């Protein structure tokens, strides 16, 4: 008798707890498709607004950020486009569409990077996630081998060779991860005609202009200004309103 009652009850509880999530997910999908439709009609600004709304209410997803970046790119907002490609790339680092579009828009906008040294080029072979995963894999390999060597009688030479190789590679991967981590949290210049200033006030002398879409690394803040180093190595103060961080720190409602 109890069993026959509990089945509908469980079903009801399941519906009560999951219904809002399902409804939100459906709403997200509808808004997303609506954005895609608006984009295909050529209304890129309208599409961007819908994707922005989706991001604000539901959080970050690689698909939404990618489409948002495309919308900004097509509407000529290079800075915003690069910002969202960078964000999408952090969620899906191996997505070739994101990589390709980001590279294309940077080239189209003349945002050429500086010449990198050979060591920098080496560490750029993998992204932060790949270096981190590699480091974890090597740590796991090292610990498993050490454990196995308690059971299986490897020769001392073999044990030393494998352990040293694993450790050295682990150090290399950790260095790579550290190097890439320094580039993990840049900001992007999103305002056109921004300028680098000598001092943190608006009437200060300008050292140079900085192009929309440039990656910059804020070091300190004073008033409404940030002291930054851009990807080409230039330094100066820039209005905080002219840049947006790739990794935004804010609380969001998580919808999985």
């Amino acid at each position: 008798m109890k069993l026959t009652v509990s089945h509908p009850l469980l079903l009801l509880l399941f519906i009560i707890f999951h219904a809002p999530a399902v409804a939100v997910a459906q709403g997200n999908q509808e808004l997303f498709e609506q954005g895609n439709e608006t984009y295909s009609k050529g209304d890129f600004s309208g599409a961007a607004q819908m994707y922005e709304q989706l991001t604000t209410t539901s959080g970050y997803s690689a698909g939404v950020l990618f489409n948002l970046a495309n919308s900004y790119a097509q509407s000529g907002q290079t800075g915003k486009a690069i910002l969202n490609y960078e964000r999408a790339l952090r969620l899906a680092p191996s997505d070739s569409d994101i990589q390709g579009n980001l590279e294309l828009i940077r080239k189209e906008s003349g945002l050429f990077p500086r010449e990198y040294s050979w060591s920098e080029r080496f560490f750029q072979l993998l992204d932060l996630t790949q270096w981190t995963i590699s480091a974890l894999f090597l740590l796991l390999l090292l610990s498993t081998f050490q454990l196995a060597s308690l059971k299986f009688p490897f020769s001392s030479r073999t044990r030393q060779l494998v352990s040293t190789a694993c450790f050295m590679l682990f150090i290399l991967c950790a260095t790579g991860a550290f190097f890439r981590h320094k580039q993990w949290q840049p900001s992007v210049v999103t305002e056109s005609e921004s300028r680098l200033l000598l001092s943190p006030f608006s009437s200060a002398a300008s050292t140079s202009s900085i192009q929309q879409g440039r990656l910059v690394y804020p070091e300190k803040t004073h008033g409404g200004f940030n002291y930054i180093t851009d990807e080409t190595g230039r330094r100066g103060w820039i209005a905080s309103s002219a840049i947006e961080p790739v990794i935004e720190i804010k609380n969001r409602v998580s919808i999985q």
Partner: protein
Amino acid sequence: MEQRKFSALFICLLLLPLFSLPARAEVSVEASLSSHSFPVDSAAKLTITVTGTRSAEIKMKEIDGLQFHSQGQSSRINIINGSYSSAISNLYLIQPLQPGTYTIPPISIIAGKETVQTEPITFEVTAIGQGHQSSKQNKSTSPGENDVAFILVSEIDRHYTGEIVPLRIKAYFNRKYQWAPISSPPALKADGVVMSPLSNEPEQSQEQLKGVIYHVLSWNTTLSGIKAGRHPVLFELDATLLLRQQQRSRSPFGGSPFNDSFFDNFFGGLQRKPIQVTSPELHFETIELPDKGRPENFTGAIGDFQLTVSASPKEVEVGEPITLTLEIAGKGNFDRVEAPLFPATPDWKTYSPNTDYSSQDTYPFGKKQFEQAIVAKNSSLKQIPSLSFSYFDPGKESYITVTSAPIAVRIAEHDSPVSPQQSTQTATAVKPQSVQPAAEAVDGIKGLAPLHLETGTFYQSIMPLYKKTWFLAGVGCCILLLLFTFFFRLRIRNLEKHPELQLQKRRQELLAGDLVKLSQAKDSGDGSLFLALCRQSIQKQLGLLWQVEGSAISLADIKNKLGDTTNLTEIFAAAEQAAYGTSELSPETMQVYFEGLKKELEDLI
């Protein structure tokens, strides 16, 4: 004969001063001070001149707040009309330790049997600030003989904010004193004014001002006001004066051979006295640039500039890049000179220019060159449009706009359309470094990958992998595993290194097992079994201890090694006896044997 007379006369003339010695002048002394008012970071010269003697002992007295540094002695002999006189001059440098009014009391000079005294001398030592204030006034116009060091700067008139103003700074160091090499150039003390960095290798020369010779260090630099107003400007330079250490009083002809200034220097008898040299306070007045007539493309350049524009190649196909070279040369604040903006037009695609600045020897003259890649979008274009650059000329007090002439080009039609990637790759050859906003492509970008049709998973925030829980748990497990294997291996190695520990452990295990069996036999009341187990246990433990086969150990061996009176010997003897006969043991005896055996064997372990 004549020759003899001449020789006698010559000898008489030579001996004349000796005969006239008793008729020498009376001994007198005079003391004089080079300055009766000087700042505490300066010094004055005290000269004591004793006439009428060739040797004198000067009794210098110590005075609180003053240090006397002997600078040497000079002597003078005069023979006038057969009248002989001599004088000795002693020079001292007086270095005050604190401001105040000082009096040098009469100084006693002993010349032979005579003692003479100087007149007391009163002088004033002023504070550093007061000294500088007073000296500043002198220094700005006419440095005096007593100036140790000072700074002079060239005149500064009224200028515009951001204008580059050439300036020459000259630091004068009196050659009468010894100086340590300066460690840093003069520092600017001013608000609202910036100065270009000074060289660590200034020009060096010598100048004579009012009869005083100075060693002069000169720097050429520029000042620039960053906000309008009247800004007080002061330059400071840290220098080190080298003063001789105070020496004991000297006797002009006697005493130690080391009583010489040469040895003062040779043996490092110099004291380092840091002083701060300052310039007179100047006022740098800056005014804002006029709003009237300010061109839209004015970026803050002030000075006098010329614009030159060239293009290469001038015959290209549609989509091929042309390198536009924009050169702005002249005199002014090149930090605010930016590339002229290429006119926004759908006919041309532009890239950010790269910049190269080269200054000439005579700053602020220089040349800034921009290289910009431009791409023609259609073949109907006949010329590159003219470019404009605006600056403010402070001489004419007006804004000037210079415009380049259009450059004729021939654009041919391309057989196949050029993809954005291709054109960009070619343009990359210019290696632009962005300093200027390129014309934004407002007409969208062709060749973008299409939209994604799935949203994918939503995340609350973007976080790196190393901050995720599963990753941290994985790293934690690996580290624990490594630590476990490390300590386990350490333990194994420790046991291998100390085999006695392993043996001891084995003996403890064996004994524990034997004691259990003995206890069981004791509890069952089986005396024969109890004694047999006692015998086995003793043999096993002693066998391990003595490194022999346990079963081969006899009562005689035990007696030999442990003695007759031990519990073990007694128990083993009872067990031997029981093994070859019969033996009945009471429970009490078994308990006594059990405890005795346990204690003895545990002690052995």
